[in-house]
């Protein structure tokens, strides 16, 4: 009997919630509920929304009614009513307090659920910097976008290398500040239902939502929710892209993973950092670059040494006209990652670097620098 009643209540509640979601203007604008906890957040929203709507109608309609009914006009005078009424005061104190108590309670429960990641969650490391995200997977793969498997909990362990950032995925209804010097965590479970018939991947927006400087509003990436096989394949491919891809293609990927694109265009366009096409042309043509070393201006040859040092420790020699804003990559990049980056940058102006050979093929087979490449290449 009791189970019947509770089941009936639950289904009524669900119907009411659905109906109210249809009727309420706000929720139409919410993104899809893509995580297992999203519905709870939305339901709390709806509960608060309807209470507020009721309160607002009481206040505005009530006030409006009084303004009309008691408006100053011929023959109408104010009536002396009581100037206080304790019963009334207690009533309109107690009722809101009780309602707020419920609000607090459901909010707290939801929040606690958001904070406690399930024990078997798939772990992903997140590194935030001005102005990009880097996601590192258990198999060592790295990507500038977040890829996750559908239907299982994922736990992000996050830190920043510079200032405060905040990771926000509206579709999952989750958000957590990313703090330099410590780790914060966030978990979600992209629920099974998000993938439709025949779809093996769906994408959502991921925003930085703690102001972090000039390009804060560009620190946007995507979350890709994969069906299981698709995710496994992606992870495998991404972990080994340097081994498998042509060096300059791998370099372009690494360029995005390391966040170089946040400050450097691959054209002539100057941003926070110089556009790299010009450097590439100088390297190809054997030119030189004007830099500031230890406060004094100098001209240095644009060669592999300069390129390598500029990536690993840019502050040692900053190009004239720019400020020292590039993070230290010494110790952050493996030799392979550095190698493909250098090839990519050189490939911007020099076609010879757009060979189909992978990095190891280039290094094992011939010279990394120089204009000669393997004969069997395509474009």
């Amino acid at each position, binding site marked *: 009997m009791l189970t019947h009643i509770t089941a009936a209540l639950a289904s009524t509640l669900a119907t009411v919630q659905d109906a109210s979601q249809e009727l309420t203007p*706000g929720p139409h*604008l*919410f*993104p899809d509920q893509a995580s297992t906890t999203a519905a709870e*957040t939305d339901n*709390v*929203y709806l509960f*608060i929304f309807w*209470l*507020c709507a009721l309160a*607002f109608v009481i*206040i*505005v309609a009530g*006030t409006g009614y*009084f*303004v009309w009914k*008691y408006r*100053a006009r011929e023959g*109408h005078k*104010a009536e*002396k*009513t*009581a*100037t*206080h009424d304790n019963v009334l005061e207690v009533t*309109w*104190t107690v009722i*809101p*307090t009780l309602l*707020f108590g419920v*609000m*607090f309670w*459901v*909010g*707290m429960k*939801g*929040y*606690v659920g958001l904070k406690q990641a399930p024990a078997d969650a798939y772990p992903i490391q997140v590194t935030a910097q001005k102005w990009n995200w880097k996601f590192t997977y258990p198999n060592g793969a790295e990507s500038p976008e977040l890829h996750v498997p559908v239907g299982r909990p994922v736990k992000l362990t996050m830190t920043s290398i510079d*200032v*405060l950032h*905040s990771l*926000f995925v*509206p*579709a999952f209804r989750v*958000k*957590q*500040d990313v*703090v*330099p*010097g*410590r780790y914060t965590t966030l978990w979600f479970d992209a629920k099974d239902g998000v993938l439709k018939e025949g779809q093996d991947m769906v994408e959502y927006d991921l925003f*930085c*939502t*703690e*102001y972090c*400087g*000039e390009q*804060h*509003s560009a620190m*946007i990436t995507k979350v890709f929710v994969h069906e299981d096989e698709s995710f496994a394949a992606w992870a495998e491919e991404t972990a080994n892209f340097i081994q498998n891809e042509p060096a300059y293609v791998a370099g372009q990927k690494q360029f995005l993973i390391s966040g170089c694109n946040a400050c450097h265009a691959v054209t002539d366009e100057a941003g926070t950092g110089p556009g790299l096409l010009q450097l590439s042309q100088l390297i190809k043509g054997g030119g030189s670059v004007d830099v500031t070393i230890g406060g004094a201006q100098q001209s240095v040859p644009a060669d592999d040494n300069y390129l390598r040092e500029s990536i690993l420790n840019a502050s040692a020699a900053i190009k004239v006209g720019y400020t020292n804003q590039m993070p230290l990559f010494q110790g952050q990049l493996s030799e392979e990652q550095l190698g493909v980056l250098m090839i990519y940058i050189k490939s911007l102006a020099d076609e010879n670097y757009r060979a189909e050979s992978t990095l190891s093929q280039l290094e094992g087979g011939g010279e990394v620098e120089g204009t000669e490449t393997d004969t069997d290449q395509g474009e």
Partner: protein
Amino acid sequence: MSSTTTATPTTTQPHQSAPEENYLNCSSGFLSWFFTLDHKRIGIMYLVAIFAAFGLGGFFALALRTELAQAGQDIMDMNVYNQMFTLHGAIMVFLVIIPSIPAALGNFVLPIMLGAKDVAFPRLNLFSFHLYVVGAIFFVLTLMGGGLDTGWTFYTPYSTGHTDTMVTTAVLGAFILGFSSIFTGINFMVTIHKMRPQGMGFFNMPLFLWGMYATAVIQVLATPVLGITLLMLAIERNFGLGIFDPALGGDPVLFQHFFWFYSHPAVYIMILPGMAVISEIISVFSRKHIFGYKFIAISSIAIALFGFFVWGHHMFTSGQSTAMSTIFSAITFSVAVPSAIKIFNWMTTMYKGEIILKAPMVWALGFLWLFGIGGLTGLFLGTMNTDVYYHDTYFVVAHFHYVMVGGTLWAFFGGIYYWWPKITGKMYEEKPAIIASLVSLVGFNVLFFPQFFLGNMGMPRRYADYLPKYEFWHLVSTIGAYILLAGLLMVLWNLIRSLTSGGKAPQNPWGANTLEWHTPSPPPHTNFEADPPYAGDPYALDHWAWDPETQSYVHIAASEQELARVEGHDAL
């Protein structure tokens, strides 16, 4: 004002000294103003300065909205945008909203409402004003010297080591403005404690003074913590203090705790004076005694007190522990209750009243609507899991503009219109004033309501650019900004015109009973020509009757009141 008899027998008019010497014309010249000790002149100087700062902060807002009308960088690049939103916030918070009602209206009205000749410490009052000017100069220097791009919240480590902008100058400016605020608070607290007239116990004071008192308590207790926080920030930035820097073992989140410990109570510094003004206006323009006086008075103190314990609700996603977040959320709801109590008491005041829709009342009704929305949307933010979604999105931006602009600014304009005849001795034109208020109301809602939708759609705040799907509501919002601009310009025009060609203001155009209406408009230098009358019940509006001939309210002698009482109205 004529002293001939009018339609009502045995009315008394206050004696008008001739020539009409008042605080405005008793001395002239820049020095007599800039070094005055007269609280009324100081109030006016604050009013002018605050309007100027409002214009500057508003200019930045308009620039922002114009840029945001469409996606892409249209009229400014990202760096300029970041500076604009920072300066808009910093100027509006520190130079406009926090001082607004206490400095411009409180300074003028508070001593007169107490039947006093001045505040307790007139020289300290002048010093407060001078500090305001110096603080403002620091902000101008910030603007001219390279700007500021940290957000008005100055979060570390961005502000301590990742920007070349004029952080130290701005922070020192805010520090100095903090002292201006503290000294005003000390002055008001002591004046209310020690200079109330005979017979005016705390529970006989007008509610405006309760609001000023509660605000003063917050100013005194919270602002010093901001002061030390800003000092720590400046020293960290310039000398590597190490408290907020993770590289030295410090904690950037610690800054947020220190900062919000002040800045949350600060928002009650902003709203309590507004609520105090509304209490006066609603009673007077409903021709009814305020309902629930004690509850409204105590609720101001409750808000001030509880407001000190909720700062962590700005930090639910900061990495603070779940336990702390829980405590902060629970206490946050406790602050909502006294605010609700006020609204219900105001509405009940209007019940069976005689509602006079003049400009002050139109602003006050607008306040009820806008603060209603602002306060209610705060519930979504105090609730922990919905806040996780809404924090740092446009929903928050809409919420705080509804309470700070729709609340405080609306009450500020209501108060300006209410006390304008007393301050200037001139009447403004009623119809254009009401139209200006309504145009502003429409503009404000078109500007900010869509921002709730943007928040629902997940749009983060402090974004110089946005994804195309957000464009529609941004365009609507910008249109609203221009409508609001039109409304506010109409307000300014209406007020300035009254100075040049407004009618002469009677002593009591509104029929209020607080003491400032028992002295001429504008008041004499010492506030009262003779000893001020016995204060009595500030909401005994039936001591005044409307005289159509002079278009003003006139004081009914005691015998008249007795007559009215015997004729069958309820007891006074």
